[in-house]
């Protein structure tokens, strides 16, 4: 399984993803410039990552301009062919804007940028990025965003639960869904979702920032470990 990390103008977590996927995990990984018009070298057994950052400065709505980049129709095609697509933070926002994932990311409830460790409970353990997480295990993974409040219209929420598309929810360190733990005011504490086919993933927390002993936190490593099990 090889990975491509898409670099939009303003992406700033691309190096971090390349470091963790490549140096830490040992995957083949290359950067893909947003002006590329083809993902032909990537087959359904490979993965495409949309990293965090401020694509196009996020001067309109986060991710709203990046979805029109040359590479995006190819990412959509790749996803529709069953390829694994994973968007983190700004990447999640772009995937929502592109319609590959349901819902939108609104400005945080308190209107401020928030960067800190948060706690996550896993809802669906049977996906390509969650299968290494032990049942009931609470993850500590940082967030860093201003627009991370997940929202989806009421009439679409049930489908999300029924199809087991909710991946992670913000909770406290004991796994309780307290109001205070819902750090940005997301609907139902939702921190990450996937598509119906379980091959497109989006999450606001940054697992790549919590994947090394040297940084004092390896909870995020579990998500990358799960990828090792895919197609192996």
């Amino acid at each position, binding site marked *: 399984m090889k990975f491509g990390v898409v670099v939009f103008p303003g992406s700033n977590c691309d190096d*971090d993803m390349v470091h*963790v996927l490549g140096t830490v995990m040992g995957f083949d990984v290359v950067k893909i410039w947003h002006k590329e018009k083809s993902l032909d070298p990537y087959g359904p057994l490979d993965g495409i990552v949309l990293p965090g950052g401020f694509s196009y*400065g996020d001067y309109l709505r986060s991710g709203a301009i990046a979805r029109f980049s040359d590479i995006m129709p190819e990412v959509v095609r790749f996803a529709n062919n069953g390829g694994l697509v994973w968007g983190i933070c700004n990447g999640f926002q772009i995937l929502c804007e592109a319609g590959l994932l349901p819902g939108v990311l609104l400005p945080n409830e308190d209107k401020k*940028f928030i960067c800190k*460790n948060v706690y996550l409970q896993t809802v669906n353990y049977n996906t390509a990025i969650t299968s290494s997480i032990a049942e009931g295990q609470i993850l500590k993974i940082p967030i860093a965003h201003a627009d991370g409040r997940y929202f989806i219209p009421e009439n679409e929420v049930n489908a999300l639960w029924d199809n087991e598309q909710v991946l992670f929810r913000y909770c406290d360190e004991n796994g309780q869904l307290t109001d205070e733990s819902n750090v940005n005011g997301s609907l139902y504490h939702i921190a990450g979702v996937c598509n119906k086919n379980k091959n497109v993933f989006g999450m606001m927390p940054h697992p790549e*920032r919590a994947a090394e002993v*040297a940084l004092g936190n390896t909870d995020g490593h579990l998500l990358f470990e799960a990828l090792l099990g895919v197609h192996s």
Partner: protein
Amino acid sequence: MNKNTEVTVETAGKLGLLPEEFDKIISILGRTPNFTELSIFSVMWSEHCSYKNSIKYLKTLPREGECLLVGAGEENAGLVDIGDGLGCAFKIESHNHPSAIEPYQGAATGVGGIHRDIFTMGARPIAALNSLRFGDLSLPHTQRLVKGVVSGIGGYGNCLGVPTIGGEVYFDPCYNQNILVNAMSIGTVKKGETVSAIADGPGNPVFIVGSATGKDGIHGATFASADLTENSAEDLPAVQVGDPFQEKLLLEASLEAIKTGAIVGMQDMGAAGITCSTSEMSAKSGTGMVIDLDKVPTRQANMQAFEILLSESQERMLIVCKKGEEHKLDAVFDKWDLECAEIGHVTDTGMLEFFQNGERIAHVPSEPLVLGGGAPVYDRSYTRPGYIDQLKDYNSGNTPAPDDLVATLKQLVKLPNLLSKRWIYEQYDSMVRTNTATTNTASDASVIRIKENGKAIAATVDCNSSYVYADPEKGAMIAVAEAARNLVCTGAEPLAVTNNLNFGNPYNEEVYWQFVHAVKGMGNACRKFNTPVTGGNVSFYNQSVINDRVEPINPTPTIGMIGLIHNMDHFTSLSFQNEGDAIIVIGTLRDDINQSEYLKNILGISDSKCPYFELEEEVALQQLIRQIIRTTKVQSVHDIAEGGLFMNLLESCFEHNKGFEINNPGMVRNDIFLLGESQSRVVVSISQEFKNSLTDLLGQNNINFVEVGRVTGSKVRFEDHDLGNISDWKSVYQNHLGQLIES
């Protein structure tokens, strides 16, 4: 005023030039300058660009050391050797006046500017710190400024993708009108891959890249070199507007362009824009430049020559390219969708020649414009301020013991200078680039690992300006000592310093006395710690005119210091780790509460001397702490600073929700034992099993120490006072500052 304005000594005065400076310009040119030329001299000879009132004393600072890869002042920022073929570029710079007028943009462009200083050298910025000073937090004006500055720093740095890893924030009424925003950037570069700000090779083309040039920030350097008054808000066009997205593109494109090998020299455009970059680059190479201003991409039509020359529009660079390799530059900037315009070429005349509409509108030599060249250098006179001799020593002999110690402690922990700055730093992305080791391990300095060699850089910014006010020489020494101590406590070897000297008006002789003595103390301390000063920034004119009375800020010589953790095994937390561990205070307890937060802000006494400090004692302490970290099994190391031993212990508890029980060994009164801020003291914790190895080492080194108690599960106790559970203290500590700011 426009280009046809007749130039007289009065015109010069309006641009901030003195009559003798105007005469000097005439003698340099051999004629009266036209308005455009006068504008060029006025910005280049402004305090901000020329350091004319400070350079004499800056030259007394230690500027050499084994670790330096370039000499102080030779490049845009200091560059130190961090081993394994890597260099670390770092610098601090102020953006005080713009931030006081327009806090969001002022702070944002301060961040953008300092990062450009780093990547113009070819180094990738990997971390940012900042030192912020605000006025009385109960004032709505202060609250507005805090919110604006913090969102400006975050808005710029977060988007740029450089983590803000640390800093300091102080509140004091002396900054009510004149806040301080000092931003520091740290970058890394492979040795031999740096780029200099030079303009070698007559005939080589000159490019301007990045954003288009607009009318923002014109005369910004002059604005920064004048008193801040209640009318300063009318100078709003002198404040620049930042675009972090453009800066991100410029950062990546610049580093990529360097790799092509086509670049001869590069300099960012900060203060005084095109004027400063063209004159400094050609002066450094002994060359000249012909620049056609019609070729500069502008944001609006009909900009006058002096507006283009003086514009401080952000996110721009001047590049001298190898002739014949222009296409390499074009290709990179085209990829990043950035402007890349050839605007002229290097000459061998030593003259700057600016053209507009085919007409040569300015013709001035580059050398006399620049610092170290012909720019004026002044030696101001100074007078010892009267207040210095009025200050008193405060101790148990002349202060009352508190009636209710517990109430006093609860009051203390709510002081803005002591509260957690969580409300502030959580708005900064502190983790992007995945190097920040202090996210999950609290430590006295901020630590970023270096992926390339397994080592880590520790960095800190420090200055307690109340101490400097009370004794500029000693206070500046303490600022250096505390910075070094913070690095040492994390397990680092202090390497080098960048300084940000924030003072009042240098023409005020008492202010200048503070400046001269602070620089002296700083120099002496830096020599002792073997940490050369690689560069930095001087910001004068920090004062406000209120009801016709001029009030200078506290002298604030902020120290930015970096150090190297050679082996990550030495990286040490400030946090208590295990219940039962012994708590040992290393250093001497003294009957001294001078300039403490307790004395100033609870007892309301402001006329105290500087707290106890002796440089030799501090050096010995730091050497011993380094040895302790390397050779014993200490669990935590944390220096005693603002708020004294009590705040030190609380801060040591929060990360792992531990508590402490301690007793006063009886040398000094309880409140002074807990809250005094006499210097050169460090608290360590260690398991009972390994305690003797530590105390033996301390004994052999003849240093005072005392075991004051032990770490508990969560209970806090002092003598027979039950101080409750650590969670109650933590809740106040973490949340109260946000409540004060948003009240």
